[in-house]
């Protein structure tokens, strides 16, 4: 009820029709999302790439995925290049942040978003979205680390729970794809989600 009200208010504040898809009807699919950024501070981080893939039932629609390289306004820091492997020259072929945001909105629509430490990614995206659309992403968020925590604490109350990605993958029997590629990370998150949902924690 409260969520519906919030959505209605956000929609009223929307100042750019290109982002209307965010308020489409919910078709029951989910979108797994991951971003690579230039730093780990959400206020200064620049978007470098976005990976997103839809989940329909037990199927990850990899054939219908979104992989965008984003041209940053400033050159990424050397220390981060080592992590995500996106060199300035790779990013030169990327799209402008504004185009990336409209294409992302068209792709995710009103679908709930799934991710691992999603909060950070959403904060960075909102940083770009607010000036353009006047709103933050209205989508419901499904945080994998939180779901995993709920699942483990049910099994082992009072234990300390390791929430690292590799632990989640090992414990849930999901293969580890090569990391720090936004689409790969989105696929990994989607697989983790399906494994958690099958255990009743979707």
């Amino acid at each position: 009820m409260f969520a519906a009200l919030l959505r209605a208010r956000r929609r009223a504040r929307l100042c750019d029709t290109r982002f209307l898809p965010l308020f489409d009807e919910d078709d029951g699919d989910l979108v797994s999302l991951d971003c690579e950024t230039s730093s780990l501070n959400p206020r200064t981080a620049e978007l470098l790439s976005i990976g997103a893939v839809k989940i329909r039932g037990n199927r990850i629609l990899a054939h219908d995925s979104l992989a965008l390289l984003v041209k940053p306004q400033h050159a990424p820091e050397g220390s981060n290049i080592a992590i995500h492997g996106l060199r300035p020259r790779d990013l030169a072929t990327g799209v402008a942040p504004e185009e990336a945001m409209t294409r992302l909105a068209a792709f995710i629509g009103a679908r709930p978003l799934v991710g691992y430490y999603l909060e950070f990614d959403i904060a960075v995206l909102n940083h770009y979205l607010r000036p353009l659309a006047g709103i933050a992403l209205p989508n419901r968020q499904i945080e994998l680390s939180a779901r995993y925590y709920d699942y483990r604490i049910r099994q082992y109350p009072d234990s300390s729970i390791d929430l690292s990605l590799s632990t989640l993958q090992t414990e849930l029997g999901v293969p580890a794809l090569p990391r720090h590629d936004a689409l790969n990370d989105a696929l990994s998150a989607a697989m983790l989600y399906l494994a958690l949902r099958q255990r009743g924690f979707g």
Partner: protein
Amino acid sequence: MTRFDFSQPPFDCLTPGERQQLEAAADIVFFAEDAEVMAPGQPVDTLYIVIKGIVREMNGDELIAVFRERDTFDSRALIAGETRHRFFVHEQTLAFALPRAAVLALTEQNTRFGAFFYAGVASKLDAMSQQSGNRETQTLLTARVGDLSLRAALRLDAHATVLDAACAMKRHKVKSLLVSRGGETGIFTVSDFRDIIINGTDTAMPLAGLAHWPVIACRRDDYLFDALLTMTRHNIQRLAVVDDDGAAVDILEQVDLLAYFSNHSHLIAQRLERAENLDELEAAAAQITRLVQILAGSGLAVSPLGRLLQALNARLFERTWRLLAPPALYGASCLLVMGSEGRGEQLLKTDQDNALILRDGNGIDASAVVTATSAFSDALTRFGYPPCPGGVMLYRPEWRLEVGAWRERIRRWVYAPDGEAMMQLAIFVDAQPVAGDASLLAECRRYLETCMRDDSAWFSRFARAVEQFDTPLGLFAQLLTREQDGRATIDLKKGGIFAIVHGARALALETGLAESNTFDRLQGLVRQGVLEAELGADLAEALAFMLKLRLTQGLAAIERGKPSGNLIVASELSSLERDLLKEALAVVKRFRALLRHHFHLASF
């Protein structure tokens, strides 16, 4: 950025463009344990490739196959668009889902990729042999002089005469010798006799003036082709081989070198021929295993490999028997090899199945027979042929009999058959003579044929042994370990090889075929119209594949210092090998159904 593993067949034969095309169409599907992936009555619109997890294919309660990481299922169902089997998730599974239309489009575009989906066993095996490619040429290019079995050089002093040299060369069966003069080494060869005769040289002439000084030499670690070049350049047939101190110790003959390039087996055969005691035979026998390693590694098919070994082993046994048996015994008896050795299918030294037929009333002292036969079995054990666990060896009284006693034994096998008699007869049916009077075996054979004629019920009893071991495909159940306990294994002999070998043996016996090799028998049965050509070819391929598999794992075991056996470790198979094994076992299953029908086995 490739997420999809394209290194596995059949995907490894796609071009980069086709890979992109396929990857763009691939989804990922998650299945919980016990979920049903495909079932009869549902259209099959997807080809799955397991990323992680285990899926099993069931026909009712019967397990047909197990699919694991990187396995593809199910190519046949995809082509047909439907399946008669149910596919269940055995362990939580993530799989790539490739849409049928995209895969079919690729099969039309890429013939090699298409062959994987449409082809039968034979062409899949062919695809496999293409992979293991051109190792042969590599071994030949990288072989060194030391890899050959070199002849220890005979050495004479320069004062020795031409006559001395001729006698020594004849005695030691060599064509050349080294001549010493102070610290210098020369060479004297048979071709020098030509000049000696032409020039009328006195045979008392010392070698010093006739030998060639100094001898041209190579080193043990020189490449063989370098040695060949040296010979060609100097237009000579042999080189001395010097050791690390620079002293010439061996002779490398051009004929040996060429033999190595054409066929290593020639060297071993020569060595067997020249051997004068058991020690030398033992050294040659040790080379046989190495020969198998080299030839199997170079991609020689198992059927010619088996025959080559049969020929070598027969020579080895013949030489051994000649050394150990008194001439009278040798002449009045026939030494047999039986079982897999008789069929020419013993690729590694698995066991010694042998027997002796003695001429009736030979008058040879019984204790001499006992001594010679025991020594023979001991020698074979020393050469690395383990004693037969079933005791089928000629030193046992029941396996060395006079012809009359053999006839009585054969009569009992045929007319009072119990399980053991059947197996002993089966071993005997495969017998081949290797030494002595082969007519003795022929006589026993003729007797066997007259005993068996026109008794179809007897053939059914004989064939029944193929039912002894359970449905081979069920053996895949052992793959279902849920990754908990140790390594899952499959007994290839019980699971597949035996059914083909014994089935072919029973049919060949009934048809009156003289061949003892299973591949020959299968061909003969096709010729006689007993087997359909396609099944005959599939059986031969399936048998060759299983023998090769057993050989590969056996060689690996020998390398680790363990005995080779019939057990195959499932986890050591590639997914293509597992696929092929599944197909091979399916062929065995078809053959067993035919045998059951042909011999009315269901009525027992």
